């Protein structure tokens, strides 16, 4: 078991013919992920590393039975790519693209609200279920199959956390990067809920950052529903208010969304909060009684 991505995931890559798409699709394939199709309008009928490319997602879905899509297209074309995948009935859509306008994202979220597709991202590293499937840009070799679920708003900080876990012998069930934008397609609560139901996941690492109130909502959910140990880290304890710290969503506005508030909410929910980013792994080991 793992959540959302496993050996049965059949992946379409939107933007496979681009430099990024081709590079990362090859890495995912190398990891054992079933990359069954590519899609770039106007390049239908060609092959990239032996993978057939289609003009439309609907075509790719009909011919290859893909049930997931991994998106590498430029930011102003990304909303269209997500909506095309959803319209074709693709169940899992993972959008790596960074820099999508917030208005496009709001429109996409409204369109997906009543559909059957789950969107992960945008502006995220993707999802990996170690030993099973990788749909994303994370370095595969730092992961290890196991039972800790990881969910994060960050990319490289997630790698840092995963690396610490692996070095301590704590493998991962699934690692989900929900992305750094203000309104992600999948939020902390969605992922925590899935990990909570997954029998293979015995504990969860949650990496948040300043801005918004998603961590507070997650804390509330954990308090009510989750009995598995949860370890958290919040980045941006030293970030100045009113400045966008790289991620579109990482901004303290009107004095709200500070790391301090989030840490207090997490602690109040019984979540183990790591004091520094260097202690995420060890905090989990302690929570599991293995340190």
């Amino acid at each position, binding site marked *: 078991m793992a959540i959302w991505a496993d050996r049965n995931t059949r992946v379409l890559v939107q933007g496979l013919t681009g430099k990024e798409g081709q590079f990362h699709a090859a890495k995912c394939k190398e990891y054992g992920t079933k990359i069954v199709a590519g899609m770039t309008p106007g390049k239908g009928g060609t092959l990239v590393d032996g993978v057939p490319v289609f003009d439309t997602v609907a075509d790719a879905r009909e011919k290859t039975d893909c049930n997931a899509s991994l998106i590498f297209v430029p930011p102003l074309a990304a909303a269209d790519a997500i909506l095309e995948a959803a319209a074709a009935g693709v169940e899992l859509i993972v959008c790596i693209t960074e820099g999508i306008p917030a*208005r496009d994202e709001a429109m996409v979220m409204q369109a997906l609200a009543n559909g059957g597709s789950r969107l992960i991202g945008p502006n995220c590293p993707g999802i990996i279920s170690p030993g099973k499937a990788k749909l994303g*840009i994370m370095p595969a070799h730092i992961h290890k199959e196991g039972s800790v679920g990881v969910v994060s708003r960050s990319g490289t900080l997630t790698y840092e956390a995963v690396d610490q876990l692996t070095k301590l012998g704590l493998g991962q069930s699934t690692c989900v990067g929900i992305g750094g934008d203000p309104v992600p397609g999948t939020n902390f609560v969605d992922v925590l809920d899935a990990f909570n139901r997954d029998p293979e996941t015995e504990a969860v690492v949650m990496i948040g950052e300043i801005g918004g109130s998603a961590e507070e909502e997650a804390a509330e959910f954990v308090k009510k529903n989750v009995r598995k140990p949860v370890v958290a880290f919040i980045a941006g304890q030293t970030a100045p208010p009113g400045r966008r710290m790289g991620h579109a969503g990482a901004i303290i506005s009107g004095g709200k969304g500070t790391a301090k508030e989030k840490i207090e909410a997490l602690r109040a929910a019984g979540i183990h909060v790591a004091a520094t980013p260097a202690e995420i792994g060890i905090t989990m080991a302690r929570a599991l009684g293995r340190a």
Partner: protein
Amino acid sequence: MKVHEYQAKEILAHYGVAIPRGRLVTRPEEARAAASDLGGRVVVKAQVHAGGRGKAGGVKLAVDAEEAFRAAKQILGMKLVSKQTGPEGRIVHKVLVEEALEIARELYLGVVLDRTVGLPVMMASKFGGMEIEEVAAEHPEAILKEHFDPCQGLQAYQARKLGFALELSGETLKKFVKFVTALARAYNESDATLAEINPLLITGGGEVLALDAKMNFDDNAIARHPEIAAMRDLDEEDPLEVEASKFDLNYIKLDGNIGCMVNGAGLAMATMDIIKHHGGAPANFLDVGGGASQEQVENAFRILLSDPGVKAVLINIFGGIVRCDMIAAGVVAAAKSLKVKVPIVVRLQGTNVEEGRRILAESGLKLQPADTMADAAAAVVAAAR
């Protein structure tokens, strides 16, 4: 991206939002002429990207053209220091001369993205002139909210609902509805992240006008709006941040003495945090981003080191998309060409890490390698002392 009040009003007027008559001037004589054209009684307002202008002496009422001249003379060239500018303040280069209107009521209107539901929200309150955060803290029930779908826009019934709750009626209500729907359209169609009218003025004659206006825009969408992009005022931004933005680098200057170069926003924030935890102070936030090229790393290095406050540098890279060998080559090339004098601690992890470490070790430069984030932070804090 931020714009000045006069620019926000230009954009809003384009969408049909009612604004007072006014003129932007850069010399006191022009302020005199503008005042006499506007009927004598005017308000002279400093144009800087910061709130708190009134308290800082940047907004003055003038009863005639001569007083407008004197007010403009005082404000133009002044160093305006408010809560939002920080102690270094801002030099005022432009003032907006606007007709002074009779005030019957001051209300508040603002549009932002409500992250909890993923939709824009129009907020209204009867406490015009107060900061919305203050209202939220003291009178949360007084903030009225109407969410709207960006595809449909804010509907007239929603605007009426706000108007009735604010006890408006008759012609004023009609004008208010037109104002609110135009404001929502301006926010939506210009890809704004904030459109705030504070205060919204109701005159004795029942007119509805934007007395002040503030708009911020989504950097991710600015390419769709060349006319707004052209409004960017580089005088209002930190020169190093402007330089960084030319290379698509996310750089934010801070007060400390440890320069940081990190890949990824979350890791960059976490690196600042761990420096603080070890008793140091970060000089900046700098994210070299996902697909950073060697040239970009060099640019990042140059920008980081042009801050004279930097006494040591911490480079923390976890290679995913960015390969460690590429970062290492960039660091070595930049350190050599810039003849770097300050100590540099480098921590590399991830893709091609061995190759990256080899490049650093064989560079002949005094680069201090570190294994973990904690080691790196401790080393750089010691080096900066």
